[in-house]
């Protein structure tokens, strides 16, 4: 059967071997050791850390004070594309920022300038730095009368726009300035119960498993698919294959299925290993024995399909090197330049879903519909790309695209006889 023959071809390719090595390495180094540390039931009287509670009256002065400190220092730390970026506003931008502070606090520009001189000053050194930094403190900072939290958010978002985005001064990130309160025993117990009862332990661990493997599964399969798709051209057997009876759709779909299945099998085996590990670590606790496998299929399969289809399509259209470079670019954008929230930040079009914890089920479940949407969306995109691959293959087969190549080809165009 063609499918098994294609599977065999995948299995004996160098890139598949590297794929196996990478996935196993990532699984062991990232998940296995993290999951080894068991979640213990909280004991009354213990220290359970802190959490933040929303309180507009705390957020507004705290955020404004921090904002003014950066304003006086003339330097704002932003993460517009994931990487840290120090923004130094020019005179025009400073004027606009000053008017925002003015509106928030009710002070005039002159008073704001005066406040700089009267503020308490703390000199400090950042880690590994020899240059002193100044922190301005405003213990009794007042907010303008009648300032609503909604309007405050609007103003702070405006400031974020002036800074080019990615600053800590935007309505989504204001929680950082809210009041910190210790987590109570009851809250800690509720969190634990969510893990042990609602998630039946394995639910939480399966999310952690998918989170770690999800980072690599959006890129590494691109290489395997690209190399596999390129084999015909590399070995100069495209024409022989083109001349066969099999339809382009059947051939491309069979190869796509073979790639996906062969790359999914080791992931499912790792899920089984994680399942066995959980069963040993939490023996005596009721576990959900299917969730590792179902969540792998729900969460990781769409990523695997999308990466595979992407590798196939770009390689068929141009070359495997282009597919790899574009793959790296997409990965870089998603992982390095994307959201740096590791838990609970799921949107409907996210390619990579992050939930880097076995806890916080409720946060995950609050975004569950977005999660499902994103998975369906990417599975759909994968199928669209496969359809595109079939179309390109068919066109090349008919000779329409034979002369079409993007740059960086490492295949020669078939000579005109």
């Amino acid at each position, binding site marked *: 059967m063609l499918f098994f023959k294609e599977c065999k071809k995948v299995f004996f390719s160098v890139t598949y071997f*590297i794929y196996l090595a*990478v996935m196993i390495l990532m699984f062991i180094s990232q998940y296995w050791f993290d999951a080894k540390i068991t979640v213990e039931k909280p004991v009354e009287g213990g220290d359970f850390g802190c959490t933040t509670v929303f309180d507009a009256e705390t957020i507004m002065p705290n955020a404004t004070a921090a904002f003014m400190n950066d304003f006086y220092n003339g330097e704002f730390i932003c993460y517009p594309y994931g990487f840290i970026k120090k923004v130094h506003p020019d005179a025009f931008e400073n004027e606009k920022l000053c008017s925002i502070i003015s509106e928030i606090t009710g002070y005039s520009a002159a008073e704001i300038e005066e406040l700089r001189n009267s503020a308490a000053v703390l000199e400090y050194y950042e880690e590994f730095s020899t240059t002193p930094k100044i922190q301005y403190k405003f213990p009794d900072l007042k907010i303008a009368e009648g300032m609503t939290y909604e309007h405050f958010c609007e103003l702070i978002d405006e400031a974020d726009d002036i800074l080019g985005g990615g600053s800590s001064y935007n309505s989504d990130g204001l929680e950082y300035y809210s009041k910190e309160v210790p987590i109570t025993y009851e809250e800690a117990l509720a969190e634990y119960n969510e893990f042990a009862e609602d998630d039946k332990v394995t639910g939480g661990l399966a999310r952690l498993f998918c989170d770690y493997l999800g980072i690599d599964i959006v890129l590494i399969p691109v290489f395997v698919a690209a190399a596999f798709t390129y084999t015909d051209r590399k070995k100069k057997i495209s024409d022989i294959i083109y001349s066969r009876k099999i339809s382009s759709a059947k051939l491309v779909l069979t190869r796509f299925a073979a790639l996906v299945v062969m790359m999914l099998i080791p992931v499912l085996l790792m899920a089984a290993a994680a399942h066995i590990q959980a069963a040993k670590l939490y023996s005596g606790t009721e576990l959900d024995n299917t969730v590792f496998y179902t969540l792998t299929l729900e969460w990781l399969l769409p990523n695997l399909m999308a990466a595979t289809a992407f590798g196939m399509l770009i390689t068929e259209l141009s070359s495997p090197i282009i597919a790899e470079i574009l793959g790296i670019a997409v990965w870089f954008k998603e992982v390095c330049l994307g959201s740096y929230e590791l838990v609970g930040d799921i949107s409907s079009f996210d390619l990579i879903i992050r939930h880097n914890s076995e806890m916080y089920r409720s946060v995950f479940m609050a975004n569950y519909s977005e999660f499902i949407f994103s998975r369906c969306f990417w599975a759909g995109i994968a199928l669209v790309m496969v359809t595109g691959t079939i179309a390109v293959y068919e066109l090349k087969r008919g000779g329409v695209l034979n002369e079409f190549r993007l740059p960086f080809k490492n295949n020669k165009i078939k000579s005109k006889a």
Partner: protein
Amino acid sequence: MNSDCLLRITKSNLRHNFLPYALLSSGLLLFVPVIFGICELDRQLSAQPLEMYLSLTGMFVLTPVFMPEQNTEIRDTVRSKRMDCTEVYLIRSLYSLLFMALIIGGFTLYMHHMNCDVDKWHFISGYGAALFLGSVGFFVSGVSGNTVAGFMASSVVYIANFGMGKKFGDLCIFTISYHTNGRIWVLYAVSAVLIITALIADRYKKSI
């Protein structure tokens, strides 16, 4: 082999086998100011654009060194000539290494001009990162005869460094960014070993 021949070989290779990758690497430079601010960065932040981003130059220019002759039809023709194929690979490697130095060195100087806290160690570590990523790709491509696998291996090393950089010890490529206290010379030594091994493996493989 006279200097004219070396010049011709270098020129041809630069034009036909290097240019696209050099352009791609140069293209990386365009996005640096967008992704990272490069004004008045402190010592640690200054290392990020060099180690985490421009290091990709190494992957792009060193990995495809073996690629033109991985087409078997071309390989036998080139190998039947007086000049050793390894010498051609060495020429390609040398100008690739020089190009990496130009990109990373030039950008380090530019950062210095923009009042970033950079010194020679930023160049050494940024170049070391590029060299290591490139040599991994070079090695896998040379040994397996498959450039795609070379790019794959190099990318894996790059990605792995983001997730567990410090665990790699001296082989972490983000030496200053992650403040690893790694011995950079180890990165250079391992890269040299990988490059030499790949060249030897390629020679051995083809003369069986």
